[in-house]
């Protein structure tokens, strides 16, 4: 996911005239006072010297190194392993705010699953003209192969990770939905493990809601997708292999769920049944939690050059002999252009207003919006619909005139392929940077599970833009992460 990069605040603060447009500070209110839910942490930090903080930071990093929570940086001479930068200080979300987030995410995923079930069957929403037909059917992430295929509970996106941001007014909004193979949940869990070691005292008294049931809930969700006549379904996690950057997460989830971690080469499809090669022969698989993209799961159905999946897997799925989670083709619901219609989609299926708003989005396929975008290329973030990971993106305030001209040409040539959004100031949270506490921009990625029912784990991955002033939280571009504490509602506690 990519965020717009606003002007470097540190250097530009002087000529910012509107103070109120500054980012929301997670820890301090407008008057500079510490918000109530941050008081305990702030007090604890007062008592710690810079050396003690640095020592804790080292403990934290050692934890990640020992656990092997690393990614490999391939250099010219040799490859080295690095840990993902992890910030010491937790980000805290009060109970009241979490209730809104939880309700909003549940509502959103319910509606998106209904949308997927609809477009892969009767396509009522397209007939009613709520979402343009060509937008959906022409999207590369739309899979005709999924048409009229029964998905238990209508749960297409079993694991969803949505990216939320907090706007300057303090309200959370959804920046992006991830319904394909969202990652990061292992960091949510590992950050929590680490922060329990580093801040045991503060942690104990804070009333932080536990998240360690996630693997258990994930397994329950996956099992709820099994056919009724298979009482003890065999679940596996399918990974692209050890060289994938999220491999640690795949192994971590498999280990915590107690299920085999398989690669494509471990699978055999025979007579529309999927088996894995074990030491004692072939064993049938019922449910595949796949961490491989649609394109690569079956060379016979999707990309022929894929060596990651297993030939015949999709046919076994269509035959109802195995369940693939998330279902193929869910990507059409987190498409950047379809995103703009999500509030409409929620209203259409649920008759409710969206609890969590979208970020204002201009669809360049609409001529009026296109001309607005073209006139404001220096202020907006323009994104190609089909691309991800920061490719095919123009960040207006940080672009040159030549880049803007290049995009203007591309936009006019193929407007349907682009959307634009205003550059948004993410909220900031205190972080430990070079032995000092300083504010950095953060986003929020909670994880939502949907099978027989929808559950939102009370925690999230908070991603941090470690470079001062930067709004880019991707790990590939100097982003890190930190533990996220969702607090218990005092009212819910027994007296």
């Amino acid at each position, binding site marked *: 996911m990519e965020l717009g990069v606003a002007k470097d605040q540190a250097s530009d603060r002087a000529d910012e005239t509107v103070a109120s447009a500054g980012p929301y500070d997670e820890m301090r209110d407008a008057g500079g006072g510490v918000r109530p839910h941050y008081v305990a942490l702030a007090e604890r930090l007062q008592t710690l010297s810079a050396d003690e903080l640095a020592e804790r930071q080292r403990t934290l990093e050692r934890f990640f*190194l*020992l*656990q*092997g929570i690393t990614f490999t940086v391939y250099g010219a001479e040799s490859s080295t392993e690095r840990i993902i930068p992890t910030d010491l200080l937790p980000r805290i979300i009060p109970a009241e705010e979490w209730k809104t987030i939880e309700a909003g995410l549940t509502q959103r995923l319910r509606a998106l699953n209904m949308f997927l079930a609809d477009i892969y069957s009767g396509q009522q929403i397209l007939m009613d003209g709520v979402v343009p037909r060509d937008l959906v059917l022409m999207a590369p992430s739309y899979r005709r192969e999924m048409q009229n295929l029964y998905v238990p509970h209508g749960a297409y996106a079993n694991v969803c990770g949505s990216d939320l941001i907090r706007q300057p007014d303090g309200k959370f909004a959804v920046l992006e939905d991830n319904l394909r193979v969202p990652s990061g949940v292992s960091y949510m869990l590992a950050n929590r493990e680490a922060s329990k070691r580093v801040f045991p005292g503060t942690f104990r008294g804070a009333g932080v809601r536990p998240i360690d049931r996630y693997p258990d809930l994930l397994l329950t969700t996956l099992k709820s997708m099994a056919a009724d006549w298979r009482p003890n379904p065999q679940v596996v996690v399918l990974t692209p*292999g*050890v060289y994938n950057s999220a*491999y*640690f997460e795949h*192994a*971590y989830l*498999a*280990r915590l769920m107690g299920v*085999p*971690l*398989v*690669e494509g*080469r*471990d699978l*055999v499809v*025979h007579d529309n*049944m999927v088996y*894995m*090669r*074990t*030491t*004692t*022969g*072939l*064993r049938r698989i019922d449910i595949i939690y796949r961490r491989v993209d649609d394109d690569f799961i079956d060379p016979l159905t999707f990309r022929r050059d894929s060596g990651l999946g297993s030939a015949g897997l999709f046919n076994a799925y269509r035959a109802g002999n195995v369940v693939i989670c998330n279902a193929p083709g869910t990507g059409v619901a987190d498409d950047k252009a379809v995103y703009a219609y999500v509030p409409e989609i929620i209203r259409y299926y649920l008759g409710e207003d969206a609890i969590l708003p979208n970020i204002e989005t201009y669809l360049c396929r609409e001529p009026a919006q296109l001309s607005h975008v073209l006139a404001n290329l220096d202020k907006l973030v323009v994104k190609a619909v089909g691309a991800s990971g920061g490719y095919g993106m123009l960040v207006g305030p940080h672009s040159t005139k030549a880049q803007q001209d290049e995009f203007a040409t591309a936009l006019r040539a193929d407007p349907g392929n682009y959307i634009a959004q205003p550059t948004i100031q993410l909220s900031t949270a205190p972080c430990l940077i070079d032995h000092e506490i300083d504010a950095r921009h953060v986003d929020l990625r909670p994880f939502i599970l949907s099978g027989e029912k929808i559950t939102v784990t009370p925690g999230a991955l908070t991603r941090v833009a470690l470079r001062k002033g930067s709004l880019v939280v991707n790990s590939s571009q100097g982003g890190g992460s930190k533990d996220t504490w969702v607090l218990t509602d005092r009212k819910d506690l027994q007296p």
Partner: protein
Amino acid sequence: MMLARVADSLYWIGRYVERAEHLCRLSDVMLTATLDRTESATQIARIALAAVGDPDDAGKARNPYEAALALVLDREDPGSVASSLARARENARQVRDQITTETWERLNLIHLRMTDPRAPQAFADGSQAFLHDTIADLHLFKGAADATMSHGEGWRFLLLGVYLERAQLIGALLEVCFGDRNRRAINDHSALTGLLRMSCALEPYLRVYTADMQPTFILEFLLLDEDFPRSVRFCTARIEEHLSSLSRHVEAAGLSAPDRLAGRLRARLQYAEIGEVQASGSSAFLGAVLDECAAVHRQVYETFVAYTLEQRLPA
């Protein structure tokens, strides 16, 4: 039940870890010997290098420090300690879900120490301490596996790798010292104690045979002792034990298992007598043992890992 690929990885973790430990010990003995008389130091270095199959053992033995440094830290050499540990750890990463965190942490730690840019300096500053720590960490790894992993299929594959590798390494070392190729018999006292140290056998040997260093006793001890964990006989007994346990599941599926070979190998050592072994030539005996070890390895592969699908598809 476990994935064939996972069993394969666990087996190789066992082999690589055992190999690394053995090489550390050879290097350590090689370097310790240089502290004494130079003559036997060269001989000990030759034994160690020949035992790891170095074609230029005579040449390299003249500079035991360089040879030991390369044997331990040379990442280019696929047979070095550092390379073996890198492979063990790479395999462990691929089966991270199958080994306990405690076990993983030990191996990861050793690997991080080996790949630390300061490792060559640490080796130069105190090679004995460096090797001693590495060996101790490898013992911790095996201890953690023993104490925290379920003693089921996966653990057995790990130990199968350890004992097969160990039987082959000790067998190769004995072949160098006592084989018929070896024209100049080893009877120098420091060379003989060196050999026992390479097998981590000095103290246990003394307890059985006292300080009487006789080549025949040493061969007997390292080959045929029932209780010493680095004797070839002990290893083959464990190989048979683990294999027959692993084979039960396969036999339940109506397939033949490789434990017949392992049983024959174990029996060959269990009922051997040192006088007969020497009378008919140690080389012939050791050769047969090493060949059978290789055969067990092949059959483990054919049975558990690289089986053909035709046999296993449901009818």
